[in-house]
């Protein structure tokens, strides 16, 4: 495969410039667009998508796909709410438990994919059904969280107030969680054996196997990480909404996959980065913000634009990876 380093980073550069371009265009067209408030909201509203996209990046880099993300998020969110509100768990314990459950769910999917040599999209499709049905089994309606710890400590006291603008800008904890997840994933992918194995397996599975890499363990880790990230994204979503909802996040996996692709990760696997995916999430968020600012645009334009962006990026990558 002929691939110059330049071509490899091109999609990432394109995404970064697109983010800048869209932001500048928004700032020029709409008077109050270039404000700290807009940027803050952009981060707060997309924090859970960013965490979900981190997990999706791992799976896609390894050449697989995970369609269960949105359902696992909904399951986590309603599980959290039920544990805290109806069973009197401490929120921190509930969060830890929910994240572990998500990881176990991902691991189980990985095990089935491995053991029976089934396609990932099929098993995670079944996982999407199971987690969604399970969410409704836990609690059939959305459930508000009124525990003081969540409202006061997690959402208020742990917020960061940046001394910018007239009133300062409050960055809630959930944005920090997302940024931490992105940073941790970037470190794992760039500097650890697991990270290199993920790239190797995604780029050329047989080659990786012949080199003696443990493909089985890599694949299992990747699906476990995706489950963990989905659950963490569910936690962030729950903090964001201050409620659990079994019907939430329908189709969110598509947004996450779209963000990963727009961020320059090859859907075939082997090439891409978490940084790119985060930029992809930002770009999706910016498009959504612009559609909202415009006011008279039907919000469904977002989906159409995202569809075309995905198509454009996939076509761009084909051109540069041949």
């Amino acid at each position: 495969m002929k691939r110059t380093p330049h071509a490899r980073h091109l999609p990432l550069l394109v995404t970064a410039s697109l983010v800048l371009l869209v932001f500048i265009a928004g700032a020029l067209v709409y008077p109050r667009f270039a404000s700290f408030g807009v940027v803050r909201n952009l981060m707060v509203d997309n924090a859970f998508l960013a965490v979900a996209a981190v997990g999706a990046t791992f799976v896609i880099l390894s050449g697989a796909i995970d369609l269960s993300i949105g359902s696992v998020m909904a399951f986590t969110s309603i599980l959290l709410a039920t544990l805290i509100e109806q069973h009197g768990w401490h929120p921190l314990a509930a969060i830890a438990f929910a994240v572990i459950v998500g990881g176990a769910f991902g691991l189980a999917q990985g095990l089935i994919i491995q053991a029976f040599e089934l396609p990932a999209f099929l098993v995670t499709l079944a996982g999407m059904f199971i987690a969604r049905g399970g969410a409704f089994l836990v609690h059939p309606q959305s459930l508000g969280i009124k525990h003081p710890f969540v409202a006061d400590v997690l959402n208020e006291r742990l917020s960061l107030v940046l001394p910018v603008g007239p009133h300062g800008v409050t960055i809630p904890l959930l944005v920090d969680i997302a940024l931490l997840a992105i940073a941790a994933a970037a470190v794992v992918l760039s500097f650890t054996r697991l990270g290199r194995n993920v790239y190797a397996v995604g780029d050329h599975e047989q080659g990786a196997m012949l080199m003696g890499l443990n493909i089985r363990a890599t694949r299992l880790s990747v699906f476990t990480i995706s489950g963990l990230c989905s659950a963490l994204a569910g936690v962030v979503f729950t903090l964001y909404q201050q409620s659990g909802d079994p019907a939430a996040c329908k189709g969110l996996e598509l947004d996450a996959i779209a963000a990963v692709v727009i961020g320059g990760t090859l859907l075939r696997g082997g090439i891409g980065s978490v940084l790119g995916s985060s930029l992809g999430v930002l770009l999706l968020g910016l498009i959504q913000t612009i559609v909202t600012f415009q006011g008279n645009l039907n919000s469904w334009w977002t989906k159409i634009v995202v569809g075309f962006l995905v198509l454009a990026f996939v076509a761009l990558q084909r051109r540069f990876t041949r």
Partner: protein
Amino acid sequence: MPEPRRASLPPLLWPLAALALLLCFNFLFTPGFFSVEFRDGRLVGTLIDILNHSSKVAIVAVGMTLVIATGGVDLSVGAVVAICGAVAATLAQRAPMPVIVLAALGAGLAAGLCNGLLVTRLRLQPIVATLVLMVAGRGVAQLITDGLIITFERPALVAVANRSLLALPIPVWIAVGIAALAAAFTRRTAAGMLIEAVGDNDRACRYSGVNESRLRLGVYAFCGLCAGVAGLIECSYIKAADANNAGLFLELDAILAAIIGGTALAGGRFSIAGSLTGALLIQALTKTMYMHDVSADVAPLPKGLAVLAVCILQAPRVKTSLARWAGGRA
């Protein structure tokens, strides 16, 4: 890995056995499951309900079966159903009936061609190519309906899904018709064999002079057309177009029906009769759960478990050991 031919089990055996098992369960534990009455010139009963509601999945599954047989998959059928429903509902009050039908089916065909071109011209993986329309398609449907749920009172259009013909609901006849046409076309001509050949080894096919591009384009277009028919039926049934929920999860049901019916996910082998049985099985399972007070929201859970069980049973590794076991005993 070559397998002795006698060791393979008949492909329709599993889905039929599962369906029989489910019917036995209902015979024992669901009172009134088998009662069918003749009322106002049509049959009424749970079994007829199942037939009626499975027809939509069956129609899409026929198209999906051929796509999967070429080694591909079409994730966009749910979104295409929404688009075609939106087209039909928008035209419902102002266009003549043939125009409505042609427009809806045309939209489906166009969507299918779009997928097919992405797969054959841009050489995208089918999952990726159809993902684009899966994401954008509902947006397009929303755009057509302007984000509203469009309701209509057009007797001719409403009749499509709500009236009966020769005692059975019309969608059942449509499903049977499409399946029969597809089966005749693929099995009476070389088309079926060529589709399987492309799914088995597309490169070998190309070298032996089969125009695999055109064949692939054809199956995606046909799948889109099938989704168009299903969209027309769905919007006729609920007398409205709901861009958000029309055909939601239909792609999963269709893929599931095809796999239950013995169509190999990796391509190379398909059975349209199997897919019909699969669609029936899914609907019978859903209906059974509803009749046993499993809520519609929780229903995906057992369904997902069923999908996993079927997939594991169909997995090559499990299948070889099962076949060896059956062959050893015969």
